[in-house]
């Protein structure tokens, strides 16, 4: 029993128990808050399993954005769940017991947790990503190197999904418009909160920029920075009201930022093709090639990701917050 095992086991147990409580709760506000708690525990587990970049994202997304979205939707709809009829429990229990049993049976073939000679670790690509990348790309944070260079096309696909999801939300909830609307949360009377959040706002944005441009050397990158930017605007919108924060960030500008990032990403790919390389082959960007060109490409891609993610997340929040309750 090492310290690692004790901490790991404790956190996983807390996570499972939280999930059990969430499943039993019928008050959905409480369930949403406990979901935020489970996200925090998950982020701690990610740190424990050496995935600092992922932990970063999970903390900002799970606790910041998805909780705000859930609470906003609960304010628009009903926050109490009806009693689940008894006859629905039995099939669900049967299915989960069967699936769980199959998974546990199949897990016997999984390599031991943390073993250094599992198929994942022995695969030739490990060597490339961890050591060869230092010569080819020269970025200490290998997660950034893989995300923005080796698997850039994959990342482009993910960004398209984010873009499509943002568009779908805007289509479903109508365009972002100016105008008089009921204040969703009247936080204007909380003076302390207003002073503290206007004090923290610039630091949140500077931190997002730091995360964006420091992603080569430490944990960080476009996805994290975009989400942190968005949490900054969500905070602003919650505290100062939607009208004020849409004056800072007009919906038209936001709407044009969403495709701008994606366009920048695809445009970079086209430029590398015009320069005689293949799609997203950063080596062609500079005549000297090598790590310098890779750096340029990675930085452009990270900025593009940051713009699209931040714009999509912020406009999703605006779309939900601008909706009037229909009751």
């Amino acid at each position, binding site marked *: 029993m090492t310290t690692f095992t004790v901490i790991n086991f404790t956190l996983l147990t807390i996570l499972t128990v939280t999930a059990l409580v969430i499943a039993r709760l019928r008050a959905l506000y409480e369930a949403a808050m406990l979901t935020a708690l489970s996200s925090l525990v998950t982020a701690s587990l990610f740190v424990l399993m050496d995935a600092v970049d992922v932990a970063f994202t999970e903390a900002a997304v799970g606790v910041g954005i998805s909780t705000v979205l859930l609470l906003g939707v609960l304010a628009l709809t009903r926050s109490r769940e009806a009693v689940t009829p008894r006859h629905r429990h039995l099939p669900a229990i049967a299915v989960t017991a069967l699936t769980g049993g199959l998974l546990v049976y199949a897990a016997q073939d999984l390599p031991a947790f943390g073993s250094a000679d599992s198929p994942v670790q022995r695969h030739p690509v490990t060597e490339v990503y961890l050591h060869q990348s230092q010569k080819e790309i020269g970025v200490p944070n290998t997660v950034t190197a893989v995300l923005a260079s080796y698997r850039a096309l994959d990342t482009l696909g993910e960004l398209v999904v984010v873009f499509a999801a943002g568009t779908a939300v805007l289509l479903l909830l109508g365009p972002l418009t100016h105008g008089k609307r009921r204040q969703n949360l009247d936080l204007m009377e*909380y003076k*302390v*909160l207003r002073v*503290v959040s206007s*004090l*923290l706002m610039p630091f949140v944005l500077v931190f997002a920029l730091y995360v964006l441009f420091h992603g080569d050397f430490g944990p960080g990158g476009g996805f994290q920075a975009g989400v942190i930017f968005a949490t900054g605007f969500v905070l602003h919108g919650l505290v100062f009201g939607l009208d004020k924060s849409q004056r800072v960030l007009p919906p038209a500008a936001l709407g044009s930022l969403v495709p701008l990032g994606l366009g920048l990403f695809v445009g970079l790919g086209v430029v590398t093709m015009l320069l005689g390389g293949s799609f997203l082959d950063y080596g062609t960007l500079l005549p000297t090639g090598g790590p310098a060109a890779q750096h340029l490409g990675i930085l452009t891609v990270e900025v593009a990701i940051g713009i699209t993610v931040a714009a999509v997340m912020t406009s999703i929040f605006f779309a939900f917050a601008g909706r009037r309750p229909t009751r």
Partner: protein
Amino acid sequence: MILLEILSAVLLAAGTLFIVSGAVGLLRFPDFYTRIHATGITDSAGAGLILLGLLLRTTTWEAGVRLLIILLFLVVTGPTATHLLAHAARRDGVPVWRKGHPRR
């Protein structure tokens, strides 16, 4: 050097003590206002002391600056959150516990 380590260990232990007492208070106190009092201690005293203890163990100045920034952030946000919770509860008319009332 050994003195610094002892001092840091004392700070870390004190911080842990405050966090545990905050958790116990959260479970044991009778009403909402006394409970957020307990969590406030976890935020400011517990986390603050642990950060100070870690500050004495840093080897590079970059890590020290980061810890200081985290400390500053906690000092600003922790009390704000507690204040907000109390303010919101007061506005919603959450009753205050008096001696002899049942726990809620």
